[in-house]
């Protein structure tokens, strides 16, 4: 890989590079793995994740497609059913609306409908999230749709380390995994080991330990939570940050462990608050740790609106460190 540095045990690389390494290593390891999607070859991927891979693997394994998201989803299904291990990329997760039938009615259900006999080693990748000035149709966080569909697994990483390890696990899964990649994180740098490793799907990661309040979150919002935790530490408030990493299956045990320690929880997500995946997390916490809670589980999510274009509106529409900090303080004050 052009951009990786060999400086001992770990290197600091961009998340886009970490993802590229995951794809590259798995393609090397297994000749049935291939990448398919729009502008992944000549262009190199709209977030440069696949830059250089066309030159390395050629057009048979880096398959550029026309603009046809339903077909892209279907290409993955058909190839997976017949013995390949495809990674299909949507240029933006917003475009998955076009492919929902293929993803939900076909990919997710094939195995079950056929009595467990179909094998679908298939990974869907898609950038998501706001903050880029791309307005309503290029900035959504739609993970809630997918976690609700049995037959899909759903992952999303907050660091290059997790991104690489999770994606490698996803590619090796004999299941359909939807991997959401937050656009604002592609250019985030982080340490990644030289040697090969995997991050298992279904295991949360405590990104910061704390004793007063648990923030349960994922993807970009992990960083806002960490920022808020840092700020609040100065005020003597100790915040634990749990990065769920895998949305389905969800590591409920890890979440409960944290909440049983802190007795307070704030669930933080960038999607529209109403009906978002955070509602599932909050529901589970109050249901399974009711007597451990000293305050209601609070949720911080995006405004009830499409994502606006103008910078102040866009920034104001989704959570950030300040909003999380406010919710943490509110949680500490107890009941609304």
């Amino acid at each position, binding site marked *: 890989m052009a951009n990786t540095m060999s400086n001992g045990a770990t290197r600091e690389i961009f998340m886009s590079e970490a993802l590229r390494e995951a794809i590259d290593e798995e393609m090397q390891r297994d000749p049935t793995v291939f990448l398919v999607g729009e502008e992944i070859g000549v262009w190199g991927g709209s977030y440069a994740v696949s830059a250089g891979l066309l030159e390395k693997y050629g057009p048979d394994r880096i*398959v550029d497609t026309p603009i*046809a998201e339903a077909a892209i989803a279907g290409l993955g299904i058909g190839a997976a059913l017949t013995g*390949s291990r495809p990674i299909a990329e949507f240029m933006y997760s917003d475009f998955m609306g076009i492919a929902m039938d293929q993803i939900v009615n*076909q990919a997710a259900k094939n195995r079950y*409908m056929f009595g*467990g006999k179909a094998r679908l080693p298939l990974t869907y990748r898609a950038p998501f999230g706001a903050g880029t000035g791309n307005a309503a149709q290029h900035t959504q966080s739609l993970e809630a749709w997918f976690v609700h569909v049995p037959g899909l697994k759903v992952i999303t990483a907050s660091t290059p380390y997790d991104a690489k390890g999770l994606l490698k696990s996803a590619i090796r899964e004999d299941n359909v995994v939807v991997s959401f990649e937050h656009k604002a994180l592609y250019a985030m740098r982080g340490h990644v080991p030289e040697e090969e490793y995997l991050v298992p799907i279904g295991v949360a990661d405590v990104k910061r330990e704390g004793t007063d309040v648990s923030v349960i979150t994922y993807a970009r919002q992990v960083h806002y939570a960490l920022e808020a935790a840092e700020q609040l530490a100065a005020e003597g408030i100790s915040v634990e940050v749990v990065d769920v990493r895998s949305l389905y299956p969800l590591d409920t045990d890890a979440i409960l462990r944290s909440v049983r320690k802190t007795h307070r929880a704030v669930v933080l997500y960038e999607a529209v608050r109403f009906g978002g995946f955070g509602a599932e997390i909050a529901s589970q916490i109050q249901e399974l740790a009711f007597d451990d809670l000293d305050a209601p589980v609070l949720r911080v999510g995006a405004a009830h609106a499409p994502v606006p274009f103008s910078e102040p509106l866009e920034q104001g529409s989704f959570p950030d460190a300040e909003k999380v900090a406010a919710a943490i303080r509110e949680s500490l004050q107890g009941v609304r």
Partner: protein
Amino acid sequence: MAARRRAVARASSKTGKASKARAKATKSRARPTATVNTTLKSMDDGQVRWIYQTMRRIRRFEETAEEAFKAAKMRGALHFYIGEEATATGACAALEDGDFITSTHRGHGHCIAKGARMDKMMAELFGRTTGYSGGKGGSMHIADLELGNLGANGIVGAGIPIATGAALGSKLRQDGQVTISFFGDGAGPTGAFHEGVNVAATMKLPVIFLCENNQYGMATHNEFANAAPISARGPAYSIPSPKIDGNDVFEVYETVKEAADRARNGEGPTLIESLTYRHKGHTVLDQKNYRTKEEIAEWVARDPIERFRTAVSSAKRMTAKEFDAIDADIEREIENAVSFAEASPWPTLDAIERDVYAE
């Protein structure tokens, strides 16, 4: 104006006028006997027997399923392929082992033609553990992955991009396999059709798009749904798009064989419009009269099984006795299938959340 006229004509098709006019226009062209004979001559006895057997199996499987449904032994929806047997049979006869198909909501025919076991199919319709899907799929969701049947599909048109994906897989794996995507005239207007066919054509994938134009999607006539015939679409994708008599198993066989050869030679997809007719309603429950009795009768008279039997008999390739022996075997197979299904256990609640994910 024209649209309104058409729509009114449609509404009045209940009275039969429009339907009658159409029946004339779509009469299947009888092929010269010479061609039939050439194809028939090229087939060995095993093939000829297999074709008859397969068509009869489909017919009898469905007639039996209909009885069972009416006796309240099964539930859900059943879509019968009766009258269309020549298309699935001729098409699958032209395939090789290991080739793939994607199927539709009207999938029993494709399934049997691809070699599925009728007992496991019947058990699936009965919702039993011994069914193809352990009862989880039902009539609309039977696959036999080992035989290359990638599955029936409840979503009209949805099998098309999947077939394209299977063909992409074959190209990358260089396994030399070909995929047929069966779909109805009603799938012609779907976005999935266009995306799947265009992508396959740009990539020259080894896939055959086989439109079973049985002339209706529910009550909608194919000419109402498709602004032009499916066979007019080839040039839009730079691929051949022959229109054939879907009740002539020989013509289907020859056309699919040629398309499969093209596919295997890296020349890309073919779109085939196979004109046929469903004798029964859209589902087992459909009692609506959007088609005239005359139209139905005309097509029943062109029954593909009868036509095949006549051709084979007059070519002296099989005797009445041989046909009857096959029929009798099939009766036994079917009886066995039903008793197998009926004797099979119902799934238990612990099965509900099983088979969602691979371990």
